[in-house]
């Protein structure tokens, strides 16, 4: 057992998996020698050599497209995009190739690989360093999209992602990178992709969140029981393919749904979950399934970011609003 943050858990997992599987290569901008701008890959080059962990040129298409070729030829690339806001130049490779190679070749060539990227706001960063872009991956058939909110899940989901036969987008809530610690077993652990986790049972309303907003939702619901509101809190963990059953069963019990996400509202991930609930649990609904989300604006620079970031108070207020419906 060791006490780990999300960041150190990711680093440990990479060590563990690379030790076990020779075919894993880890690269990206600044990923090699210094171990990445957040140090998630720290020490890998020193331990496993430059061949297995290296600094790529500054070129996201080459990083992701190169990884596709490596995967076809027997390697297991785990690449880093420095911030999710810089995935766009590599998005062509993700959508038109990584997601489609299996289908295009009817199973001949597959591209098992992991694309890691820190995402999300609240760290007072420059432009393009704060986006929540999960919709842009989740809406692409052929991709899996995973977001942990704890060190344990970071380790377990990253392990599953690395061992998955399909490409996995692994989004890391950087606001939580060093926010708190957990005791983790030193051995391999796996968390199944596609399974949500119910963090708190409750009968009155279902709250679904992921990434850093799980922690905000936890704060939000603290004390609500004393006010007679019993929240069921679900950490979605996998955005695609996501755990419909967990949400639907919960909403069938509670009759109320609030989805909280930092991604912008319009055409965002909450819309999908709400539509699904309409399909799966329409007759159980006692209030409109609702989303509390980022505004439909460019996430502001730090001096305006507080307007955008969702607070526990806002979540609590929305919960009460829905309870009063």
């Amino acid at each position, binding site marked *: 057992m060791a006490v780990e943050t999300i960041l150190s858990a990711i680093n440990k997992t990479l060590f563990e998996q690379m030790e076990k599987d020779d075919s894993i290569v880890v690269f990206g901008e600044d990923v090699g020698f210094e171990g990445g701008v957040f140090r998630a890959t720290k020490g890998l080059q020193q331990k496993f050599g430059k*061949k297995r962990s290296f600094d790529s040129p500054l*070129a996201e*298409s*080459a990083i992701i497209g190169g990884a596709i070729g490596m995967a076809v*030829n027997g390697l297991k690339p785990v690449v880093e995009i420095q911030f999710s806001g810089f995935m766009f*130049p590599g998005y062509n490779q993700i959508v038109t190739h990584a997601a489609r190679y299996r289908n295009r070749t009817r199973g001949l060539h597959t591209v098992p690989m992991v694309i890691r990227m820190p995402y999300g706001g609240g760290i007072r960063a420059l432009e393009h360093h704060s986006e929540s872009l999960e919709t842009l991956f989740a809406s692409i058939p052929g991709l899996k999209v995973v977001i942990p909110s704890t060190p344990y899940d970071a380790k377990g989901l990253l392990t599953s992602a690395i061992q998955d036969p*399909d490409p996995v987008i692994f989004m890391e809530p950087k606001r939580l990178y060093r926010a708190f610690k957990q005791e983790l077993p030193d051995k391999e652990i796996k968390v199944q992709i596609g399974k949500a986790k119910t963090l708190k049972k409750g009968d009155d309303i279902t709250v679904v969140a992921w990434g850093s907003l799980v922690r905000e939702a936890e704060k939000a619901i603290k004390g609500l029981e004393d006010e007679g509101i019993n929240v069921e809190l679900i950490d979605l963990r996998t955005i695609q*393919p996501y755990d419909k059953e967990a949400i639907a069963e919960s909403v069938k019990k509670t009759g109320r749904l609030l989805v909280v996400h930092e991604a912008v509202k319009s055409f965002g991930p909450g819309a999908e979950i709400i539509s699904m609930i309409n399909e799966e649990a329409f007759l159980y609904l006692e209030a409109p399934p609702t989303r509390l989300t980022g505004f439909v604006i460019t996430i502001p620079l730090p001096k305006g970011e507080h307007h955008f970031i969702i607070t526990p108070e806002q979540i609590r207020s929305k919960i009460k609003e829905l309870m009063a419906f």
Partner: protein
Amino acid sequence: MLTKKFDPLKKKIFQVLDHEGNIVDEKLVPKIDDETLLKMYKTMLLGRVADTKALQYQRQGRMLTYAPIKGQEAAQVAPVAALEKKDWMVPAFREMAGMMYKGASLEKLYLYWYGNEEGNHFDEELRILPISVPIASQVNHAAGVAYAAKYKGDKEVALVFVGDGGTSHGEFHEGLNFAAVTESPLVVVIQNNQWAISTPREAQTKAQNLASKAIGYGIPGILVDGNDPLAMYAAVKEARQNALDGQGPTLIEALTYRLGPHTTSDDPTIYRDDKELKHWEARDPIIRFKKYLIDKKLLTEEEDEKLQKEYNDYSNKTFKKVEKSGLVPLDDVFNYTYETLPKDLQKQLSDYKTYLESEGK
């Protein structure tokens, strides 16, 4: 080193067989055994015949959109002929003859242009990547394949094809740069067929030639007569050896010409004139290579005619077989999205089947 001798900045073009099929310089003739020479020629010829037929099928409404290779047979067959079996071929989309040399069956290739994903499912040991439609993006895949080859210590290279149009794309730049800086065993062949659909080579770039783009990546580049199979073979052979020696990629510009339309949806008479076509028809790689082989007593006119007939029949037979393959089964369009069909997709599929049944379909 050919790449030293034929410096693209000096606009030198590497040629072994001239337009008439005569040897330019005996010292430049690559060592190719007779069997290989004949296999090269036969594949080019099969490519030519199968191509002509494909256009016909399309005009008859039997084939879907098809991208002809006519005129480019040497530029794509010779590079593949210079490979070993364990090398990888990474096509763009206009390499039917090259893919056949690597072992892809005409049936698969027709199936692809017939509109069926199974056409990209080659035997695994052939080491052919699928046809890649997003221009130049395959260059990055090839860089990755090559990196992995080096990583595993396997003595294999990746050969990638890209068009003249493709050289303007960011994906070309990133892939070449990545392969160069990682010194990965990659051979890049630009099939410069002078046109990207209706856009002429001069509208793509102000560079005097495409081979000179190699300088930006610190790698050797060479301008080759792409309709000369011997020159193309020699250039790729040398590039392959350099790649295996740890020297990284080579950029080979094959000067060739698309004698046909861009695809069956294209009408080249809109944008190019007959004179240009005539100029290049006189430089047809097949005429030239045939002359060489006849001179070398490896082929006779009669054998050639027989081959043409044979390939004609073979194309017809193959396409009829493809036509019998019919539609893709419903399950197949779902089953390869992921290794295991997620629950949600299972449900979409079964709901749809239920619907079809309810409609009596």
